[in-house]
């Protein structure tokens, strides 16, 4: 009746991420699939268009590794720390290395980026919003345009749909059919997933379908839209998973130092991405005690009663 979509990361990326694709690894600070980003680097994908509200370290690393030709985003920084230096080296002409070219840039605001996924997911030609009025953003992004309301003629801005070839989301748990449950900051995981042609769901834990069905309000993506499920404990590190492990703020700070220097960045990629065969090896390289230090104490939700209506 049901088919398992459970595969390892190597298989999922090989099957669903191709050179030239538009890829969205989403997750707002929370649940960012670094495991998928690193596997894309290892498989040496090229000319990707990388979409994300906040490119974060994962896209800084992918840009440094030469995977990207274009970025679509709304906030380009190392949250709480500063700049994404590898990306800056590809956006500021004075910092460009010989033989490198500038990245193509397409930028929005947060609401605009969310709206692009919503329009894509809803199969609508645009998403209207009140942002961008009297901002210079529409002058530098011709895809931010005005639209007139058919009900009274009011003019608002609009952004076009975004339909990634593949969206990769991380979450707490899923069943083998790809029914995904998440709690904590939801970001735009649901909208980006529904907008995509293919979805790779990466989770901390595979659970029986009965666990999913016992708490259906927590499902953000049904197996219907998910192409592959990957079980990857600590797969979001150095970002975090609510209730499982904390954000590795020390690494976010350390990346600021590493990424300022192109050679140090390359050395880091060699050691922590190319030099490990998968996420399990990456986790083992840190050692178990390291992740114990990132484990929060417990704060369980109360349970709710859905009722039995047989």
């Amino acid at each position, binding site marked *: 009746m049901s088919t398992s979509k459970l595969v390892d990361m190597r298989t999922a990326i090989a099957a669903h991420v191709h050179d030239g694709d538009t890829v969205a690894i989403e997750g707002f600070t929370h649940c960012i699939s670094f495991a998928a980003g690193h596997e894309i680097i290892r498989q040496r994908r090229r000319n990707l268009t990388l979409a994300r509200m906040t490119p974060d370290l994962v896209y800084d690393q992918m840009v440094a590794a030469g995977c990207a030709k274009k970025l679509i985003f*709304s906030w380009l920084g190392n949250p709480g720390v500063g700049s994404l230096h590898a990306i800056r080296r590809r956006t500021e002409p004075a910092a460009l290395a010989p033989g490198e070219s500038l990245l193509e840039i397409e930028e929005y605001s947060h609401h605009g980026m969310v709206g692009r996924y919503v329009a894509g997911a809803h199969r609508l030609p645009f998403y209207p919003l009140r*942002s961008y009025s009297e901002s*210079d953003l529409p002058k530098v992004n011709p895809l931010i345009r005005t639209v007139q309301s058919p009900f009274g003629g009011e003019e608002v801005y609009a952004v076009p749909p975004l339909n990634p070839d593949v969206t990769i989301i991380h979450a707490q748990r899923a069943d083998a059919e790809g029914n995904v449950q998440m709690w904590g900051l939801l970001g735009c995981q*649901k909208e980006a997933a529904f907008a995509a042609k293919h979805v790779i769901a990466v989770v901390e834990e595979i659970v029986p379908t009965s666990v999913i069905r016992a708490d259906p309000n927590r499902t953000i993506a049904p197996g219907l839209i998910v192409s592959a499920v990957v079980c990857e404990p600590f797969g979001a590190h150095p970002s975090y998973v609510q209730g499982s492990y904390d954000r590795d703020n020390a690494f976010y700070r350390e990346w600021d130092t590493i990424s300022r220097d192109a050679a140090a960045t390359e050395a880091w990629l060699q050691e922590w991405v190319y030099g490990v065969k998968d996420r399990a090896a990456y986790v083992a390289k840190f050692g178990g005690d390291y992740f114990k230090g990132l484990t929060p104490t417990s704060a369980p939700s109360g349970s709710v009663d859905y009722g039995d209506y047989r």
Partner: protein
Amino acid sequence: MSAQRPASKSELMVVASAHALTGKRVCFVGVGLPNIAVNLAKRTVAPEMELVYEAGVFGANPARLPLSIGDPTIVTGSTATVSMHDLFGLYLQGGRIDVGFLGGAQIDRFGNLNTTVIGDYAAPKTRLPGSGGACEIAINAKEILVIMRQSTRSFVKELDFRTSPGNLGGAVAAAKTRAAQGWGGSGPSGVITDLGVYGFDDDGEMALRSLHPGATLDQVRASIGWEIRIPQSFPATPTPTDEELRLIREELDPTGAYVS
């Protein structure tokens, strides 16, 4: 209780910002100094305040100082954790936010802000983070408070890029634009710096409202790239109380990561 040592410039900014939040109900919080200011206000002048984080939290109750805007501590114990679509659509554009905090690399005399680039957009000298939620906060929050340190590099005659609109070219034009384009807010109401507190005159231009203890008018003039309006008389910014400094130093930023 022993007296606290005098306030640092950052602590003056935090306390002045907290005072500006007196009696406010719903505040859109940024990381860093705004975050400490809002948490101080909640413990002093605005106990009913709801903290909203753009990462998708309404009614946050952070147990530690979050480094990033999306720290897990803003989720645990919050009133509501919502998608970004809900946060920006229902809460912000829907008109539920009283005050939003913004900062930037550049501000002009009308409170317009640049967080996008220094230099030309296509070939920038410095690529900055961009809008994030700033552009929509500027338009939709009922009022805007800006926290920035003063320097002639940041308080400029002309922005290199206008990411987030303030009073545009003046209050009259700005009011017309806000009405015509359905903005939910009335723009910037205050700018809090390391030297003083500024408001906006009826014509929409920034003017000094109070000078921080220890700061001088010469310092103020030397760190603003246009001739700043200084009224005939103005008060000193109230000196932080021992209790305010204690809350900052012992509870809100015990390691001094932001305010030392």
